[in-house]
């Protein structure tokens, strides 16, 4: 049963992500990306990573997609020669694709031993219960520094967005 669902969601994810790169219309690519994010979130739930699944839906399928749509609306997509632009980097794309394929092959050859491996999260999850609770406990005790660092990174993102937009507006 669980294998059936895994197969279903991973098949949806693979097909949707193929559609993302193969879509003729850029908005269609973004819509297929939503499908990809959603099915990936379903896979996260099946792995017991509910918090990650919630983030995937809220941030990626929600906010990031909005950002993508705005970015598309900001530029004049119709006048852009997308094909000519991408085909320039074909050789690089092939190389990168080969590297990723080799990586996936290595994982496959190791017979998914990483699935049996239990990280600190998995061990604690059995002890403390919920996935979000384990993340909370670890994040706000052992991993304070990365957590506070995240706020700095977010601050940089905010300031960067404001600076870019304001200077662009003043120039226009």
């Amino acid at each position, binding site marked *: 049963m669980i294998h059936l669902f895994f197969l279903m969601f991973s098949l949806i994810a693979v097909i949707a992500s193929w559609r993302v790169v193969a879509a003729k219309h850029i908005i269609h690519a973004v819509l297929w990306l939503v499908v990809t994010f959603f099915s990936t979130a379903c896979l996260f739930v099946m792995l017991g990573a509910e918090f990650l699944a919630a983030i995937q839906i809220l941030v990626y399928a929600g906010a990031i997609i909005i*950002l993508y749509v705005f970015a598309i609306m900001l530029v004049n997509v119709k006048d852009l020669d997308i094909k000519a632009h991408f085909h320039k980097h074909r050789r690089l794309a092939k190389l990168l694709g080969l590297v990723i394929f080799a990586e996936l092959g290595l994982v496959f050859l190791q017979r998914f031993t990483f699935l049996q491996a239990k990280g600190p999260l998995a061990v604690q999850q059995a002890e403390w219960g919920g996935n979000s609770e384990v993340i*909370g406990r670890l994040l706000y005790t052992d991993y304070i520094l990365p957590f506070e660092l995240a706020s700095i990174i977010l601050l940089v993102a905010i300031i960067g967005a404001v*600076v870019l937009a304001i200077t662009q507006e003043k120039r226009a």
Partner: protein
Amino acid sequence: MLLSGLSSYIPVLVFMAISGAIGFLMLLIGRLWRPSHPYKEKLSPYECGIEPEGDAWERVIPRYYVYAMLFLAFDVEALFLFPWAIVFDKIGWFAFIEMVLFIIVLLIGLVYAWAKGALDWRY
């Protein structure tokens, strides 16, 4: 009865199936039921009753992007609040001070955006 583990997601799956079926059936029944006599005026995009003007591919001002970007930053901030709220009573004041620091750093960003006028809507 309390469902445990993955089987607790069966109701979610049922919801997904039902909502998907409703959407699919509405479109399907509509397609089978309605008469179909398309002509040029009927197929043209409706723009408040007047003749459509220009293209749908219009560039929007970058101001929208700032709002989306700010939304994203504070969305991620809000996400950090969820696990914090769950474990708050177990960790106590330490977690509270941590979160106050976190929010103060992000408030600096909000104040900066406000002071720079990124939140005003000018034309």
